[in-house]
Each structure stands twice: as C-alpha cells, then as structure tokens.
C-alpha cells in the first residue's frame, strides 16, 4: 500500500491527463452537439438529414473502435494524428452524438408560444435562438449534459490502450514497477470516483445558477 502512496506524483499526473481529456473532449462534444442538434431542428429536410446521419453514425460506433481507426488505420491513407488528438476526437465525436439528441429534444421542448411570440415580435431566426429559445433549452439540457460529461470522463480510460498517460495507464505502470496490484487499482478507482462526484457537484451548481438566471426557484423545478 505504501508503494502506491509513494507513487502519488504519477497518480496526480495521470489524474491531470484524465481531467484534460475530459475538458477537451467535452468542449468538442458540446460544439458538435449544438451544431448537429440545432441542425436536427432545422426547417430544411437536408439539414435535418445531416444531423440524423451524424447522430446515428457516431452513436452506433464504439469509441474505442473509432480511436483505433484514427490511430492505426487513418495514418495509412495519409492522415496522421497524435494519440491525444485521436483520443479527443473520438471521445468528442461519440459523446457529441448523444449531446446532439439532448439539444434537439430540449429545443423542441420549449413551449410553442415562445416561438409564436418571437414571430410576433419580428425577431430574426438568429435572435430567436439566441435570446429566447436557447436560454430556456439550456436549463433542460444541463442535467443530461452533466451525465454525458461523466460518461466521457469514465470512457476516457480507454485512451490508456493507445498509450496515453492517463490515470489508467499510470496504474499499469505503477503495478508493473511495484508489483502492488490491489492497492493500485483501489487507488485509481477512488480517484475516478472523486472526479465523478466533483463533476456531479459542478453540474448541480450550474443547474442552480441557470434556474436563478431564468427566474425559477430551485424548489419549483424539483
């Protein structure tokens, strides 16, 4: 056990990489989710189709398969990715597809009267989205987005298989160096659990902020 405690700088480095992957992956996922989710609510059937294809394809694909494809297959046709880029891309593309469905659902859940009001007020479509629809939809998106970020964080453990020095990868190194199997894995499981709980609290904080911004009281939404 003390061997594992002595390896704490390694564990911290790994945890930092896991956090970085989570942040980069989530930012990419969020952008993709907004772009393709809004495409899914567009009036043009073509734009909607693009949204659907993205969602169906990347929801159907396993992150690890995608990562292997970026990392091992694509260099053969001339696209080279660093391991980190391959990891962030595949995590972001995958979680973004789930996020796009969240965005689409949330935008569609905003009451119809709100659309009608923006038409009556002669808002442009961009103004309508930015000032009326999205702020209300965001409140609905936050809890499922929070779950997705935690899924992404947990899912990032697979990057250790393409030799990125995340928490899981460090565990294998420490296990090899010290021969201490049990405590190494107990330690990183605990660290993952703590990161997940921290993310959960952040999401709850954000939910309360958004509720207050929209003039809702926390009790009213419960």
């Amino acid at each position: 056990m003390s061997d594992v405690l002595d390896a704490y700088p390694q564990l911290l480095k790994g945890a930092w990489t896991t956090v970085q992957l989570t942040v980069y992956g989530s930012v990419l996922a969020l952008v993709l989710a907004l772009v393709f989710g809004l495409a899914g609510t567009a009036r043009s059937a073509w734009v909607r189709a693009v949204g659907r294809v993205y969602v169906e394809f990347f929801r159907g694909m396993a992150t690890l398969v995608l990562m292997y494809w970026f990392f091992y297959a694509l260099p053969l046709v001339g696209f080279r990715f660093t391991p980190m880029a391959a990891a962030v891309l595949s995590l972001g593309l995958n979680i973004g597809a789930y996020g796009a469905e969240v965005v689409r659902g949330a935008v569609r859940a905003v009451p119809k009267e709100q659309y009608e009001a923006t038409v009556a007020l002669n808002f442009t479509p961009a103004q309508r989205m930015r000032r009326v629809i999205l702020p209300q939809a965001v409140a609905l998106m936050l809890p499922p987005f929070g779950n997705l970020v935690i899924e992404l964080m947990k899912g990032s453990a697979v990057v250790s298989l393409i030799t990125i020095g995340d928490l899981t990868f460090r565990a294998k190194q420490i296990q090899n160096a010290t021969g201490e199997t049990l405590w190494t894995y107990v330690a990183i499981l605990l660290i993952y659990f703590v990161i997940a709980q921290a993310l959960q609290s952040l999401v709850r904080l954000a939910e309360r902020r958004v509720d207050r911004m929209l003039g809702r009281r926390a009790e009213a939404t419960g």
Partner: protein
Amino acid sequence: MEWDWHYTGDILPDLLDGLRVTVTATLLGYVIAVLLGLVWTLLRRTPSAVVNQTVRWVTEFIRSTPLLVQLFFLYYVLPTWGITLGPLTAGVIGLGLHYSTYTAEVYRGGIDDVPRGQWEAAVALNLPRSRTWLDVILPQAIRRVLPTLGNYLIAMFKDSPLLLGINVAELLNTAYTTGTHTLRFLEPITLVGVLFVLVSVVSSVLVRRLERRSHATD
C-alpha cells in the same frame, strides 16, 4: 494506400469469429446485468437501512468508475486473492456488473411508475408479498421498461471492445491482431467500424419498434 478487396475477403472469416465472441460476451453479460440489476433494486426496497445504504453506495461507485478499470480489477486483482478468471469470464462478469447498476435505475423507475392502486389492490386481496411482486408489480414494471432495457443491450455491445484490454479475442482485438500480422490496419479496423454501426443501427430500429408497441398497448 488503396483499399484492397482481396485482402478484405481473406480477413472476413476471422473477423466474423471475433464478432461471435463479441456477441457471446455481450449476451452473457446482459443476462447478468438484467438479473443483478433487479436484485439491486429489490434490495434497495428492503426495510433495512444498512442494506439500503450499502447497495446505494456500491452501485453509485460502480457506476461512476470506468468499466475498463473494473475489468482490470477482475482480471489482475482477483488472482492475488486466489480467484483466477479467464479473460472471457472476467469480461462477461465486468460487463454484467457494470451495467447492472444502470438496469437497477431502469427497474426502479418502472416500479415507481406502477400505479399506487395496484399496491392497494394487492393488500385488499390479502396477497402475500412474494405474489404481490411476482404477479402484480414486476410484470407491469418490466413491460414498461423493456425498450430502455433494450437500449442498454446496445450500449453494452458498444462497450464490448474494451474486453481487448484483458486479452479477449473479440472483434476489435481480432482486427488489430490481423493488422499487426499484415501491417494493413485500414481494412480490418474499418470493417469493425462498419459492423458496429450496422449492428447498432439495426438494433436501435428494433428497439424503437418495441417502444412504439409498448406505448400502443398501454
């Protein structure tokens, strides 16, 4: 580098073998997930606060930590306690255990959805507890949650490549091994991707049909 169709044909039988392992692991893991999830849910409804809180923490812990690390735990840590599992066994148990914490939530929602009147009717009829659960509550709850349970089968299928981390010769592992022998990764890994998307899209269409059917009979 051009796509080589001849090579594609050569490796296809091996990949289908890998797919068979993937499907076997997913289905066996699913059986565990579906049964164990129900056990968690029922345990959380026992009057004992100790049991209730322990189950809550254990499931929350399993759900918030990565499946891959859990697989490593089963495969590398258990032998130090004298329990040695084969890769496929460890993989199936890992998948099942991980997803049981998700199916438990699904069951819980389904049971909460059964109208109160049904419980009251069971009391009025003086049904014993076991018959209340088996004949009244569970059949209604499970029918409601079938589509959601189906979605977790798809989710498990998509997590099955993680089993390569503990040396299971599943689909992605087979493709990777083939690639290292021939130094051509493009065809095998692309094929794996195509197979995954095909299976997932087809099964989500089936689940959606199941969803519509279960709404129709409500």
